[in-house]
């Protein structure tokens, strides 16, 4: 797949700070991939997202070194307001990102900014409300709905603009488990049905890992690890050393690996783990039976 986003020796330091938020970052994100970015607070995840979306250097002052290319063009080469048509962004605080008085207006706002016609808006609105399950909420003010619904509205508002790249900056950090599941359900459908490049920054890996094609670990402004998801979690010792807690099932199998009970790859989902565990039990049972026969 061709690369859509390319960062080369990229360093960004906010004005009036001593240390760069991102240091010498080299990164390539392929078109149509689903990328998970993880790392502790202050690692530079949001700065990275803003750098790809053009909010940096557009809205923030600082010192930049290196390059950030999106769709083959340096982010600064995009005219004001045009990069955001290629890279959509969903922020962590759903409340703070609403720009309209009803859910419908919120979904429509971005499309109007793109200069779409009423017929186009109507068509996309139909599609996006079906995808995100928001049809019944269109008339409601966005500040009156639940946290999960709010974040789905924010997601839908960006989706409606059909950007090539979607960045979600800790989209579930303020949500309860059910709402978190609902947001990731939408992302799951998006991955299955659309060809967008999706970048999700998350602390909670339970939902992120099964969807991600690639994972990136940011630590103190640097890319410490970047790999295909399964290969990424082979570096479990490094991840645990950096206090990155893998999903429960993965951690469990990692412990089994350590004790020598299990020797395969780490499962990414509960379903996969259940299969592997069943297989393990079967093998164990067969081995025990063999021992008895002998």
């Amino acid at each position, binding site marked *: 797949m061709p690369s859509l986003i390319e960062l080369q020796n990229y360093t960004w330091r906010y004005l009036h700070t001593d240390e760069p938020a991102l240091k010498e970052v080299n990164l390539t994100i392929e078109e149509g991939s689903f990328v998970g970015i993880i790392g502790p607070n202050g690692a530079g995840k949001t700065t990275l997202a803003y750098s790809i979306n053009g*909010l940096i250097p*557009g809205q923030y002052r600082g010192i930049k070194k290196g390059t950030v290319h999106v769709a083959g063009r340096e982010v600064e080469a995009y005219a004001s*307001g*045009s990069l955001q048509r290629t890279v959509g962004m969903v922020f962590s605080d759903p409340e703070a*990102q609403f*720009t309209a008085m009803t859910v419908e207006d919120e979904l429509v706002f971005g499309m109007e*900014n*793109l200069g779409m016609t009423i017929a186009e808006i109507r068509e996309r609105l139909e599609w996006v409300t079906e995808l995100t399950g928001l049809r019944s909420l269109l008339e409601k003010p966005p*500040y009156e709905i639940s946290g999960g619904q709010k974040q789905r509205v924010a997601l839908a508002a960006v989706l409606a603009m059909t950007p090539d790249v979607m960045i979600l900056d800790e989209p579930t950090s303020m949500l309860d488990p059910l709402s978190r599941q609902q947001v990731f359900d939408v992302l799951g459908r998006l991955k299955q049905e659309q060809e967008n490049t999706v970048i999700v920054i998350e602390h909670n890996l339970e939902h992120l890992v099964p969807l991600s094609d690639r994972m990136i670990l940011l630590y103190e402004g640097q890319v410490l690890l970047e790999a295909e998801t399964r290969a990424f979690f082979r570096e479990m010792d490094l991840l645990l050393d950096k206090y990155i807690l893998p999903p429960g099932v993965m951690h469990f199998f990692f412990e089994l690996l350590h004790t020598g009970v299990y020797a395969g790859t780490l499962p990414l989902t509960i379903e996969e783990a259940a299969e592997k565990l069943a297989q393990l039990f079967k093998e164990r049972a067969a081995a025990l039976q063999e021992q008895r026969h002998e």
Partner: protein
Amino acid sequence: MRKTLLGYVPDESPIYSIHPFVNLLFMLVVSLFPMFIAPPEWNFSLILLLMLLMWFSRVNMRTLRIYIPVAVSMGSIILISYTLFGGTHPEYELLWQFGGIRIYWERIRDALVVYFRILPMIFTMVFFLSTSRERDVIVAMRSVRVPFVVTYVFAMALRAAGMVMEDFQIVRQAEQARGFDSKGKSLPYKIRKYVMYMIPLFALSLRRTEDFTNALVARGYAFTGKASRVKRADYILTHYHFGTMDAALTIIIAAAFITVLYARYGLGLFDLESSSFLTWLRELIVS
């Protein structure tokens, strides 16, 4: 009832079938009526008409109680400033004198006239806010070609007011949790310590502003350049249709306004001398 940023509106109301422009026009035009009508009884009749319209629009009349303190305090301030602090007017009819304070009939009359002019204006605004959802207000403004930026700033100002109130509650609760609570304390203490709320609230507002700007940019809104000159589809206007009923109501409102103007300046009606209420009141006080 549904809570909006402007107040409470009914869930269902016959007025929702009317185009928001008509509602806005009603508010703007009818609130001007008292300017041309001096007799308090006519303005009082307008208040009754507005209350009837509210009842017809299924506005919860109990919510009007929140305006009673405003009406009473406003009336008291007007009456006191016109009578006790009304000055010396030898040309006026003196009713009572308490030391240096002289109470004249004309000043009482003027206070009543002013009060009953302001009251229907407030009622018209209350009627508008009690029957208009936030979106209706925006649609009304856009349908009279108010620029998008102006309507947007208005909408966001409404929203910001709600957010500041929420933030204030958060700050207050956080400070209560840390042992600071001005509840039950004297007013001077509250004023002195108000800075304890204002500083975090100000800091929060700055952060909100940054978040909001980022959200606007992320939604493709451009403040400058080619993208800022994009022709907007104004999709929400497609939900509203200006029908025959709306046209008829617009004509009725305009006709009513012209009638009031004609009655006032053409026929000389609605002046102070024609007020039977004021004549009755004067006789009552003087006798």
